[in-house]
């Protein structure tokens, strides 16, 4: 590695670290009480700032180092005097932390970037000056300037004057227990482990033919170890949801302040782990949900008091694991959503027909429709509406589900049910014309044997299956995949899908269900219609993972399917 590369690595490493430190600092500020001075937290913040300053200087980001130094100085004032920070003071620090984060982002693409932190610095210095004049008149300005002078010149003195801080560091420096690993290396490892598992299955077959007692014993040990290795390596992709939840604290604080509402955010289950890829995707929708809960769900103070509710509203973010699913709930104690109001607004907007008969649940779900979120409706209705389609889309993309529970004047719970991992999903393996395909199990509502007497072919609607008094469109998987058609429907199985619409897909056979490892297809065959990925089955052969909704969407705008169907029947 030459010097230039070395420096680059060093700087990138610093930027990662800086992000982490800035987030920690933010968290500590959020944790600070308005009423009581906390030595521990204040010292922790001070340490963060001090570390950041030192590292920034070491890698040559002097603008940033100088700015952090100013933050440190402003902060030191509070720490020295044991003054409790007001919300307003905190705001100034939050703004500074945002500035740090922003500049790190810019540094990432341009190491030589220069920054002007003057406005932020002014804001910082204004708070301590104001504070100092509020304090006892005895030693105000003189003392503070002296204080600054000492630490400005000699950083070491700060450390030595704070022995407590150093003793505590073993507790607070948890990030040191981790190592950063390139995601591609983890993925490679998971690939090889997958191969190991397949080889293991092959060995088991061979062993049952030729094996003796001795090899049987070794084999059963190997099996245990292989399983352990597989579980561990899969676990490497899992990260706690905590950082996303913590981000919400800040958002709640800012929005509540802006809307002049008093909101307490509670977090439950922030230690729960889920796939990094899922976490990344779910972050923005959660922001939408929280924002909506404060904006539309939670009432103003006076209104809450009239309703005999506590004047401080609460929003709870809950993460939990339920039956192999990762569940995130956003619970508020606001005014709830009136499904009739939603329904009427949707009719007015032309989203649904005037004489559409919908269940309460269906009416509530209208808030997830894209065109529902217009300004007009938001002011008209008591419910939510902004950006909810983003939530619905994201959940669909992850093949999860979303559910609303609401009671007027008691509050609303929005429940996102997500796969814990994108790397492993539960799949239903089916065959058609001898090839195997996999549907995510989340898409399969049920599977039924097709009774020929109960299918009808119409020239306008295609095939229809009568299932317990319900008429469902029936599509043949062979035709959906442009293959030669399945000949007869006699012994076929229909997979019933109930997503935004209900329909059946006819397959030859259901092989079984399995936990499958999802593998991306190469870019030469990415974006095939209805194909969302591939996997390797227990027999060692690849199989394609299909998305029922995407396959059907394709047919909907495509006359070809019906032409092909007509040729068969």
């Amino acid at each position, binding site marked *: 590695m030459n010097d230039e590369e070395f420096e680059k690595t060093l700087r990138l490493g610093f930027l990662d670290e800086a992000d982490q430190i800035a987030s920690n600092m933010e968290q500590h500020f959020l944790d600070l009480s308005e009423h009581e001075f906390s030595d521990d937290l204040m010292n922790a913040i001070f340490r963060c700032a001090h570390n950041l300053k030192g590292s920034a200087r070491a890698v040559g980001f002097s603008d940033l180092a100088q700015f952090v130094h100013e933050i440190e100085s402003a902060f030191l004032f509070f720490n020295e005097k044991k003054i409790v920070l007001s919300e307003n003071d905190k705001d100034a620090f939050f703004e500074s932390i945002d500035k740090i984060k922003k500049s790190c982002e810019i540094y990432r693409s341009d190491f030589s970037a220069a920054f002007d932190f003057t406005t932020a610095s002014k804001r910082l210095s204004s708070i301590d000056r104001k504070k100092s004049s509020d304090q006892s008149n005895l030693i105000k300005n003189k003392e503070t300037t002296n204080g600054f002078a000492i630490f400005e010149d000699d950083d070491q003195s700060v450390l030595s004057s704070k022995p407590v801080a150093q003793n505590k560091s073993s507790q607070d420096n948890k990030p040191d227990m981790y190592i950063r690993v390139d995601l591609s290396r983890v993925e490679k490892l998971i690939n090889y482990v997958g191969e190991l598992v397949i080889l293991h299955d092959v060995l088991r077959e061979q062993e049952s033919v030729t094996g003796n007692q001795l090899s049987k014993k070794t084999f059963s040990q190997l099996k245990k170890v292989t399983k352990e290795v597989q579980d561990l390596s899969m676990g490497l992709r899992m990260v706690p949801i905590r950082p996303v939840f913590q981000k919400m604290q800040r958002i709640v604080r800012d929005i509540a302040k802006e809307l002049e509402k008093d909101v307490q955010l509670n977090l439950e289950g922030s230690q729960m782990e889920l796939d990094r890829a899922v976490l990344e995707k779910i972050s923005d929708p959660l922001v939408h949900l929280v924002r909506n809960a404060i904006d539309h769900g939670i009432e103003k103070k006076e209104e809450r008091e009239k309703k005999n509710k506590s004047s401080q509203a609460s929003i709870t973010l809950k993460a939990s694991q339920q039956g192999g699913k990762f569940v995130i709930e956003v619970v508020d104690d606001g005014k709830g959503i009136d499904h009739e109001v939603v329904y009427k607004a949707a009719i007015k907007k032309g989203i649904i027909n005037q004489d559409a008969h919908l269940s309460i649940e269906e009416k509530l779900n209208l808030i997830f429709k894209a065109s529902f979120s217009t300004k007009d409706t938001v002011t008209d209705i008591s419910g939510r509406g902004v950006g909810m389609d983003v939530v619905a889309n994201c959940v669909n993309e992850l093949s999860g589900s979303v559910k609303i529970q609401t009671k007027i004047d008691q509050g609303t719970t929005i429940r996102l049910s997500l796969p814990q991992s994108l790397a492993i999903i539960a799949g239903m393996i089916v065959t058609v014309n001898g*090839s195997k395909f996999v549907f995510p199990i989340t898409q399969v509502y049920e599977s039924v044997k097709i009774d020929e007497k109960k299918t009808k072919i119409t020239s306008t609607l295609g095939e229809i299956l009568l299932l317990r008094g319900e008429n469902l469109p029936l599509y043949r998987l062979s035709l959906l995949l442009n293959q030669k058609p399945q000949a007869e429907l006699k012994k076929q199985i229909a997979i019933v899908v109930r997503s935004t619409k209900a329909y059946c897909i006819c397959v030859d056979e259901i092989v079984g269900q399995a936990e499958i490892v999802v*593998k991306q297809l*190469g870019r*030469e065959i990415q974006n*095939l219609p209805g*194909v969302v990925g591939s996997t*390797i089955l227990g027999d060692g052969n690849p199989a394609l993972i299909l998305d029922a909704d995407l396959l059907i969407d*394709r047919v909907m705008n495509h006359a070809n399917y019906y032409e092909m169907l007509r040729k068969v029947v």
Partner: protein
Amino acid sequence: MSEITHNDEADLRFICFSLGEEEYAIPLLDVREVIAVPEMIHVPFTPKHFCGVTNIRGQVISVLDIRKKFHMPDSQSSEKSVIICEFKDLVIGVLVDSVNAVINPKRSEIAARPVIESKIDPVFITNLYRKGDGVVLFLDIMKALDLDDRKAIDNMKKSA
């Protein structure tokens, strides 16, 4: 690449394979391995020369029939092989008749592509090399794919 641009002699190694009567070569450094024809799973919505996907040590890899791609007649050859090529962001298997040898020509022995009649759109051919009585055509597999396969699939998506 319209001509060989490698400047290191070690990079001037090519793996030769036959397609029918003709002999072709690709840079050895692009080749990850050569395997016997594996079991392949057909992929819907793909063009004719797309044989399918296969499992190579846990990785799902597409295999393409270069002969069908070039509209050459089916061969009777039984000893077919798949060359697994690894490019920057793409790993792909290429079905060929037989893998013959690794050659290490001198730079002076490599000639530019002349304007001649060929069964293949000559833009895939980067150079040629005289080997005894015969001639070896240097093939740019990436170029072949970029020009044709991706387009074919994109078109399919449009019509789908």
